[in-house]
């Protein structure tokens, strides 16, 4: 499966996002990207199928959950 990671600054926000996405039928797991992959070091991410990324971003924006770059997972 081709996966991507939507970066999120905090673990609390990552859990909130994961639960919200699950309710909307998008499966994802919380991961810890390498500090080199996140601009400020030590961030969090939601790893998900590449085809779910756009839908997930729409849901995150609608729920006002802040997120960062989408990186290769």
């Amino acid at each position, binding site marked *: 499966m081709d996966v991507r990671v939507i970066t999120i*600054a905090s*673990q*609390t926000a990552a*859990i909130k996002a994961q639960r919200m996405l699950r309710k909307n039928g998008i499966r994802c797991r919380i991961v810890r990207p390498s500090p080199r992959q996140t601009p400020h070091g030590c*961030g969090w991410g939601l790893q998900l199928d590449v085809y779910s990324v756009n839908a997930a971003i729409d849901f995150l924006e609608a729920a006002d959950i802040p997120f960062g770059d989408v990186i290769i997972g």
Partner: protein
Amino acid sequence: MIYFDNAATTFPKPAAVIREMTKCMREYCGNPGRSSHKLALASAEAIYDVRCEVADFFGISKPENVIFTQNTTQALNLAIAGIACRGDHFIISNLEHNSVLRPVASLCALRGMTYDTVDATAEDADLLQEIERHIRPETRAVVMTHASNICPRILPVREIGALCKRYGILYVVDAAQSAGIYDIHMVRDGISVLCAPGHKGLYGPQGSGFAAFADDFDFERFRCSLFGGNGKNSNDTDMGHEPPDSYEAGTVATPCIVGLGAGLRYVKAAGRDKIERHESSLMQYGRDLLKDHKKVTVYLPKAQRGSLLLLGFDGISPSEAAEKLGDAGVCTRAGLHCAPTAHKALHTGGDALRVSFSAFNTPEEMEKFVLILDKILS
């Protein structure tokens, strides 16, 4: 043993609290917010669940606005230091615990702020008028207790909140003696920050507490007062302004937070309103048994609601009476109760005996207490 020191910390704790804390320490309890392995995530998920439960119980919709602390004092320090800026003016009451009085007074000295104190022993309408009279253009916040820690006085939170909203000032509530007992809804009551312990009316363990911020609270202007690692943005020296992580430096107390969650579920199952009625009826029963005693002074004898009684005695100091009660197996608390201005307002002479109740106390215990006290006084 009769435990009447529940205003200090409730005892005993519900079995579910001990069970959940033990389960946490035995089965998961990784460091939340640091790693993504199973145990760390299990801790983080358990903490997030409690954030959701606390937010829901107190009427806010953003679980991330619940910032865990070790106790109410830390929560109040976080809130007061976070909002205070040079030149600000604060309003507090004369019934405040030192957990409000000291941070406000210290910040006034450190940051060039000022504060006024209003008389919270006055009738509700007079109290509201006095608060309004003290509001100035530079007033930043009203910081006030919800329920006194020494006497059965419950402040009109909703009306104070409405007043603060009208003037566009923040309302910080010290709910050390009210969370889990009295009805609190942050939106309805206009509360900006609710500071509460886990280990009193919510029946959790010592080491748990929180500051819950209103959904529309502006964190961009809110200063951090505890600095350190939080598992995010480690390359930055700035903590950021993203609740809760920016304000929870260091490892949080996962077992205590999980215990707080179990305590909260106990309160919900038992019925907060039932607990309130039970404690108020114990207060009234004790007061009625003691009010005509020749050697006992009952402070605020006309109170209709409350979870505690404050007593003074003829012929023996309250501290000495507390010692003797302790020897007879009755746990109470005497002294100043960390609330010197409240004692002054009530004219206790700087020492009084507090007896305080929980869901676990009974009328029979009250009768026994009165008999033992009578023996000590005779």
